[in-house]
């Protein structure tokens, strides 16, 4: 899976170029100057220090959610619920940030991240428990719980934590010392990038070198075997879902403390779902996740400035982005997730895998 460095990288680059060309053609036929458009896109993504900073800014939450999704994938769990953890995490962090206003910044920030991660983790534990103990398919529960998280946080800021005079539902502002320090002048790029990178290192190490990582890999590749050999399968599944949720929660905390300085109802435009794309584009390797997060971040950041200077409508950029993802999807025609499906009679839970080989291919990224 270190594929990105061995031969696969050039291929990836090639397909991305192909996609960009396709997008260019579309722009041309609809009478836009594609070349110029891409120029702007590139410049506003990498052109100068601040452009780069903004790209990193856009990439930061994606790194989190990508890793959160990845670690679940590794255990053969398809966690669509990172979005939900992101919301509850964001609110919790914001709550800490505007409640314990007397604490010194360092403590407060640490506390806010911790709290956000904790609550995100607990949120992830719900589907984790249901899957591990009751074998409830996590795809359904996580999709459902996302909606719940979004509605519930919305309730919190329109009810108990209502702030008068706000046209949109949002929490109070987090106290200044809880607002994450910025890394670059006049860019919102902030400390949460560092946190993201730390999480990246931890996850990478965890997966490669620790007993947990080893158990995750085994369960992901053959849950039946894992239990027969004496691994704590249920516990690991719950643990993994919690960690996944925890990372999602950290992502939310980062956005709340570093970008919006509050919890804004419905603030995430599917950052959690981007995590799925990224984990897959990253071929299930942490490094891959890092790279694809940067890639998507650059695309997003570039796009938002692009539409400002080339009169190219946002939607067209969405199309281009979609094309890139599409082509990359084609290029990464590896099948460990294509196999993930319930045998049409009973959704195969971990431990009762009907087809270990297939189950095996699933998690083995």
């Amino acid at each position, binding site marked *: 899976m270190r594929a990105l460095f061995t031969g696969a990288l050039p291929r990836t680059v090639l397909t991305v170029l192909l996609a960009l060309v396709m997008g260019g053609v579309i722009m041309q036929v609809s009478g836009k100057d594609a070349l110029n458009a891409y120029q702007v896109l590139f410049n506003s993504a990498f052109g100068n220090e601040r452009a780069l900073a903004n790209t990193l800014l856009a990439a930061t939450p994606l790194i989190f959610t990508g890793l959160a999704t990845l670690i679940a994938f590794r255990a053969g769990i398809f966690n669509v619920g990172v979005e939900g953890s992101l919301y509850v995490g964001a609110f919790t962090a914001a709550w800490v940030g505007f409640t314990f206003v007397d604490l010194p910044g360092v403590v407060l920030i640490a506390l806010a991240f911790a709290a956000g991660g904790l609550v995100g983790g607990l949120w992830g534990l719900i589907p984790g428990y249901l899957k591990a103990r009751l074998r409830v398919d996590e795809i359904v529960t996580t999709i459902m719980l996302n909606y719940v998280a979004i509605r519930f946080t919305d309730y919190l800021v329109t009810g108990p934590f209502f702030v008068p005079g706000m046209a949109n539902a949002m929490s109070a502002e987090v106290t200044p010392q809880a607002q994450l320090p910025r890394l670059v002048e006049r860019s919102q790029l902030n400390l949460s990038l560092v946190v993201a990178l730390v999480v990246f290192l931890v996850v990478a190490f965890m997966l490669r070198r620790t007993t947990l990582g080893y158990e995750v890999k085994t369960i992901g590749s053959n849950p039946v075997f894992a239990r027969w050999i004496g691994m704590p399968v249920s516990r690991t599944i719950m643990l993994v879902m919690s960690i996944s949720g925890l990372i999602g929660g950290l992502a939310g905390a980062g956005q709340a403390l570093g970008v919006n300085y509050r919890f804004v109802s419905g603030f995430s*435009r599917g950052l959690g779902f981007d995590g799925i794309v990224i984990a897959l584009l990253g071929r299930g390797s942490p490094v891959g996740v890092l790279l694809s997060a940067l890639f998507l971040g650059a695309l997003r950041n570039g796009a938002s400035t692009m539409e400002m200077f080339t009169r190219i409508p946002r939607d067209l950029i969405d199309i281009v982005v979609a094309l890139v993802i599409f082509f990359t999807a084609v290029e990464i025609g590896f099948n460990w997730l294509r196999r993930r499906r319930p045998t049409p009679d009973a959704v195969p839970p971990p431990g009762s895998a009907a087809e270990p080989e297939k189950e095996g291919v699933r998690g083995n990224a």
Partner: protein
Amino acid sequence: TRAQDSDLSVALIIAQGGLGDRSYNDSAFAGLTLAAQEFGVDVVPIESSDPVGEGEQLLRAAAEAGFDLVITLEFSHFDPLARVAPDYPETLFSIVNIVVEGPNIVSIMFDEHTGSYLAGALSAMVTTDAAVPNTNEDVVLGAIGGVQSSGIDVFLDGYIQGACAINPDISVLVAYSNGFGDPATGRELALAMHESGADVVYQIAGGTGQGVIEAAKDTGFWAVGVDSDQDYLAPGFVLTSMLKRVDIAVYDLIGRLVAGELEGGTVAQYGLAENGVGISDMTYSRHVVPRAYTDRVNELREGIIAGDISVIDTRVISEEQRTAFYSNRTCAGIQDLMSSMGS
């Protein structure tokens, strides 16, 4: 539309919901285009897929692109604006729906509650009048908000106040569609209200509101439009529209910019008096609504302008008052609220 007579340039940052909401954003954009033609200024609408998250980036990018005036329609930009504006003293900024302090910031406020009050009053008058088509004997109105937030509630509460002013026994059903982009849900919600007796339904729900109006059209009751004149969307089924003339505000703003009179650190208040809010001309419903009603609405309008009638802006009530009122969002509740304000 680069024009010789002015080399000023204006950026308009579009709010959530985006262009095509046929209300808030579109209305502002109309004002922008008009201004572009009239004054020959260079105008650029800026849409973002994530206006909330990218707030600061958008503002900075716009400022650095050298626009003379940067107007943001996105409410949540008040935080970033306060941070960004000082870095660009040469640029004028303007934000709608909230006051942001700053020497180079012009805030634009609307009295949505007074406009909605008039709509509520009119609705209350027709709902019991058998002479008016598509009404029933029930003393029930409906109001649908896109999401629950005081920005939306100020419309709903103004509407309720107007209705109660006409008929203290009236009940106004309130619901939230939870999103601005889902007409199908809007339709079902409106139907549910109609089933429980509401024959006039006020929608403050953007694209979701489209469904409300459609429901009114094919089930035969009245919808009330919002922000821009939506009467034409279903002639004969939209009683009126509560106009929030963002177009006028934007147009004025640019006008004053061109005239060199635009002062930072000011607040432009748009109420009934300024025709910043009000109700539509009822092009398609005028002939079926008794003259007396529209006259009464005009009296109320005068009364509010004169200050004889006070309409509560629920954005600025205290925490206790709010909790009290929202646990009992009825005419009685309004009464209590009023008395608590009075004291």
